């Protein structure tokens, strides 16, 4: 009953600056500013992981003359977290236009991350030149049929990494494709509805701004297989800014880039790197720390900037 009210639809524009914890209760989103110590408090059975995105190694522009240095800064930020994250998710666009050697640079820098494992999904910048050959050569092992998508379980939470940049369609939207959606249906089919689900992919799985291609055309079909779960957290990149939306039990969240910010949807004639001074841009790039606490269904998502 009262489904519309309980859905608690909300959309929040980017906020710059300090960390915020987002907590969704009964589908309604609320937030509070946190002191760093509050993020560190650990309860038994809880764990945290980090999302980094859009490292764009090879990018050089007004907003950032050295995207390698800002990735290193992001790594330093991750390594300062207490407790250390269980693992890290990289949600794509490791490279800027598949520049030669960029994948090697990312791998080299991420070697020093203090965590057990890093999971990857590709961005369009990682695959557009060769249809994903180099990316899958490096990161395809252990994924479904070597195609880049995958799932794993961690302390009772089910994680799903999806690929939505290998079937770029006419208007620049992301797409998952029939085969991947069928796999997803089977992958989550046997799970109990109380299993917390985390889905991560590069292009947002919700219509952030289709005019700029910031959407995935067949995402709704994939999400249809997830609506029965009590807690679904969707983590994306691609748009280089924090945006959040809650739809029923599904929370959508996009991460900042570690390289450069993009304009808010529709606020500029086109997307692309913002041309702003580096000091200003530092306050618009960063990392995302996600915390799961047993008994508190929604995951707490904390975004922190590098500047």
């Amino acid at each position: 009953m009262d489904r519309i009210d309980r859905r608690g639809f909300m959309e929040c524009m980017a906020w710059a600056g300090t960390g915020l914890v987002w907590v969704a209760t009964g589908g309604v989103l609320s937030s509070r500013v946190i002191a760093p110590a509050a993020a560190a408090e650990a309860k038994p059975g809880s764990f945290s992981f980090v999302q980094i995105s859009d490292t764009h190694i090879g990018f050089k522009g007004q907003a950032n003359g050295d995207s390698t240095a800002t990735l290193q800064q992001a790594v330093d930020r991750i390594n300062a977290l207490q407790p250390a994250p269980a693992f890290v998710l990289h949600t794509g666009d490791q490279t800027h236009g598949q520049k030669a050697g960029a994948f090697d640079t990312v791998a080299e820098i991420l070697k020093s991350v203090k965590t057990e494992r890093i999971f990857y999904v590709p961005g369009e910048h990682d695959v557009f030149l060769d249809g994903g050959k180099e990316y899958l050569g490096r990161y395809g092992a252990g994924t479904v049929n070597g195609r880049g998508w995958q799932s794993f379980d961690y302390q009772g939470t089910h994680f799903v990494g999806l690929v939505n940049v290998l079937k770029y369609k006419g208007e620049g939207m992301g797409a998952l494709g029939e085969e991947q959606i069928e796999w997803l249906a089977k992958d989550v089919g046997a799970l109990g509805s109380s299993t917390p689900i985390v889905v991560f992919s590069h292009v947002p799985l919700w219509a952030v701004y289709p005019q700029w291609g910031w959407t995935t055309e067949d995402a709704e079909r994939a999400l249809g297989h997830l609506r029965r779960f009590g807690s679904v957290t969707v983590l994306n990149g691609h748009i280089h800014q924090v945006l959040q939306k809650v739809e029923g039990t599904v929370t959508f969240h996009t991460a900042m880039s570690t390289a450069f910010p993009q304009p808010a949807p529709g606020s500029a004639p086109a997307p692309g790197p913002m041309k702003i001074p580096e000091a200003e841009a530092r306050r618009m790039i960063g990392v995302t720390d996600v915390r799961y606490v047993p008994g508190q269904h929604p995951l707490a998502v904390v975004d922190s900037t590098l500047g």
Partner: protein
Amino acid sequence: MKLVAGVFVVLLAATHVGAASSAAVGIEKFKFTPPALTVPVGTTVTWINHDEETHTITSANGAFGSTGLGLDDTFAQTFTRPGRYEYFCALHPHMKAIVIVK
């Protein structure tokens, strides 16, 4: 200004068959300018990217294609046969344009 010069050269070439000609297409704010370019056979078209974002020149039928072009990078293609050559940016497929070779 570059664009005007390019068109001028093309017009000259059209009246002097056999002379090499050239034309330019700019990429700015996620748009190809001009979106439709008509040139005589033998013309070399040069694209220049004025965006900080990477773009590509990717032929719709696979006839030609660039790698990722960063800021101020260029790509040149000589058109030796008449035809309609549609192309787009592989990273931003809504960016579409055409070269018409007569």
